[in-house]
């Protein structure tokens, strides 16, 4: 882990080269971005994989509404801005053609942390991962009070 992504990975996310980012973990398949923003690093959240974890009672479908409901089970509510807000933790959900593809979580310094598929976690600017070929664009911000963290 040297703080930078391999070039072949950067090619998938060209915005990263022009924005600030750093690698913050090793590669692993143990968790995906949707679990990562929920604070889980030994589990994969996936509504449409029969072997994926998904909160009980939430529809198993690849829709923004299902993802909002999933994160509501751990205290998040919809929010209309991506600004750093003291006392709150925020997550961003990306969609492509209306289907959720990625999620990331805001850090205390206003940057965002993401798990890149099966690659590493990175800390980055929000626009660094927006990409029409993979994750799409940020479609929804959610927030929860920091004192509700489990």
């Amino acid at each position, binding site marked *: 882990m040297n703080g930078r992504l391999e070039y072949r990975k950067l090619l998938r996310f060209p915005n990263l080269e022009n924005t600030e980012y750093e690698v913050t973990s090793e590669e692993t*398949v*143990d968790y*995906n971005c*949707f679990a990562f923003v929920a604070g889980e690093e030994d589990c994969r959240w996936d509504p449409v994989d029969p*072997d*994926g974890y998904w909160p009980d009672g939430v529809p198993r479908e690849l829709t923004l509404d299902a993802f909002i409901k999933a994160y509501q089970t751990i205290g998040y509510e919809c929010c209309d801005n991506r600004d750093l807000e003291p006392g709150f933790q925020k997550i961003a959900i990306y969609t492509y053609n209306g289907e959720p593809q990625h999620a990331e979580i805001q850090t205390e310094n206003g940057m965002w942390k993401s798990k890149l598929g099966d690659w590493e976690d990175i800390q980055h600017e929000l626009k660094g991962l927006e990409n029409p070929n993979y994750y799409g664009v940020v479609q929804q911000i959610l927030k929860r009070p920091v004192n509700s963290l489990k």
Partner: protein
Amino acid sequence: MKLPDRITTYKYPIKSHVEIEAEFNSLVEEWRDQTRMLSLVTQKSMHPAYQRIIGMGQPIVPLIFRDLEQKPDHWFWALRAITGDNPVKPEQRGRMKQMAQAWIQWGKEHGYEW
């Protein structure tokens, strides 16, 4: 299961283990290269190389178990499709190491060697 009234004869070329393993390794490399950045297993498993691996059928199951034993990866979709079974318990869903272990155990119990 209703058996056919008469046995028909047909033939198809049988690939050697070496050919199967070489094709499997090539497809795995292509699949990993092009899907590692994706977050959802459904999208990874729809990749043409992964679909081709599923299409290779039972002969590649030991190769998947060998790979899975070295390091957990997204082989559960393929294993379900090829074997028609699923030993993963509901409480193991999403937990890669536990799911890999469940499948490896299943493979040993069902006569696979790798």
